[in-house]
């Protein structure tokens, strides 16, 4: 990654597109502090989190959550979905009954019946698992959600349902999304603003319609040509 600078405003959906190896997932990992930047700053809600580590990051994770690419891989195979969803509140010491009630209502908001709390990851489909992952991300009432190719492992009909769910949740909860994706059509219909990455650099950013209909940089032109 090299000289990448952008911000996500409250309630905004920012799309990040680019080919494999362009650094999309690296951005997600940097923001959630799974890896350390060599230089630079990461601010969440005005707080510099670049130098935080260990326990100091726990309050940060109450504001920012992430949904991963592989649906089944993002839940511990030996624990129920409910365990995974409730983990953040369990770590905060919220009583069992209370956190399970919240998990149940969030699961229902995400379009899954409450009994999915008792299921294991291998017992549910990819789309159901991804809905559970969204519920898990919402458990601690974050302000920003990062989606790292969260819909790319799903088939198109399920993908459409998940996008509709995300739009609805975004309106209800006034969330900001950082939507990492390589599907330009999806970005065009779903995002408010888009950043195009190539080889670790931002080559273009702007409104999705502008970027996709009249791309300025060479790479963005090629990317658009390759698809349409």
């Amino acid at each position, binding site marked *: 990654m090299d000289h990448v600078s952008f911000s996500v405003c409250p309630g905004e959906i920012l799309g990040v597109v680019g080919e494999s190896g362009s650094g999309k997932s690296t951005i997600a990992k940097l923001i959630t502090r799974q890896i350390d930047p060599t230089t630079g700053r990461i601010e969440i809600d005005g707080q510099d989190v670049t130098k935080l580590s260990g326990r100091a990051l726990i309050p940060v994770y109450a504001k920012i959550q*992430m949904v991963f690419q592989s649906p089944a891989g993002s839940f511990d195979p030996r624990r129920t979905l409910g365990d995974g969803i409730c983990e953040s509140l369990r770590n905060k010491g919220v009583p069992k009954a209370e956190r399970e009630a919240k998990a149940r209502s969030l699961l229902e908001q995400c379009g899954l019946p409450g009994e999915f709390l008792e299921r294991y990851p291998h017992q549910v489909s990819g789309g159901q698992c991804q809905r559970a992952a969204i519920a898990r991300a919402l458990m601690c009432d974050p302000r920003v959600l990062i989606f790292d190719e969260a819909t790319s492992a799903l088939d198109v009909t399920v993908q459409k349902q998940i996008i509709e769910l995300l739009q609805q949740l975004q309106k209800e909860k006034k969330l900001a999304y950082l939507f990492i994706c390589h599907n330009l059509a999806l970005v065009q219909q779903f995002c408010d603003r888009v950043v195009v990455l190539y080889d670790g650099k931002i080559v273009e950013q702007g409104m999705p319609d502008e970027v996709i209909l009249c791309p300025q940089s060479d790479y963005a032109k090629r990317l658009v040509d390759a698809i349409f």
Partner: protein
Amino acid sequence: MKDTVTVRVQKVKKSGIKTRLIFFLILVAILLLVTLFANQIAPYDPYAQDLSRSMLPPSPEHWMGTDRYGRDLFSRVLVGAQTSIFATLALVGVISLFGTVVGTLCGYYGGALDSVVMRISDVCLAFPGLVFALAIAALLGGGVSNAVLALAVISWPKYARVARSQTLALKNSSFVAAARLSGSTSGQMILRHILPNILGPILVTAMLDIGTMMMELAGLSFLGLGAQPPTAEWGNMMSGGRSMLQTYPWLVLSPGFAIFLTVVIFNLLGDTVRDYMDPKNSRAR
């Protein structure tokens, strides 16, 4: 041409892994029960000497004959099992626990700790195992606990390596990242998510290791570095009868057969556990 592809599904043959597992578990349970109650089962006092009855061949009275002090070999093999089997189980328990803890911490935290500990384990692995154990046992002096300690020093790296590689693979998985984002501390992540998921391979390694460790422990005793006479232990019983192998073969054959039987049973159980844990067999259970 009518059909291009014809599919006819017959009932998929169920493999008998579970039956085998239960069978060997029962055998091991019998073995352990006999060992546990060896003192009650043994027909004679394993330490009572009677020189007038020395070197008797196997007979209905003495199933495995007697040794040069007239002690009943069957009773000594039974009671010797307590030393041999329990020391082996203790050894495997200690090294698998220690190796797993060290390996998991190294894999999880990486960095300087990982480099230092893994170089130490390389050093342990660089020596031929039994030779290194001999040196340590000789340094510490004889005795079962010293022999166990010597073997533990050379054997833990295997478990540390298994645990470390499994932990490294899990550390980068999405669910561990998700647990971190859920505000779990490192300790919580290791206990809740990593250890339960690496336990399978560790258990299989431990089961397959029991036979080997039993042989090595008996080997140290045979060389006089493990259990000391007159303690009944299979290795030193074989050692005691070594010089009379041609004239009184039962002195060596009785404990030898006991070792053979026990090692085979534990190895077969280990193989079965490995097959059972193999994810490719998950449908056949």
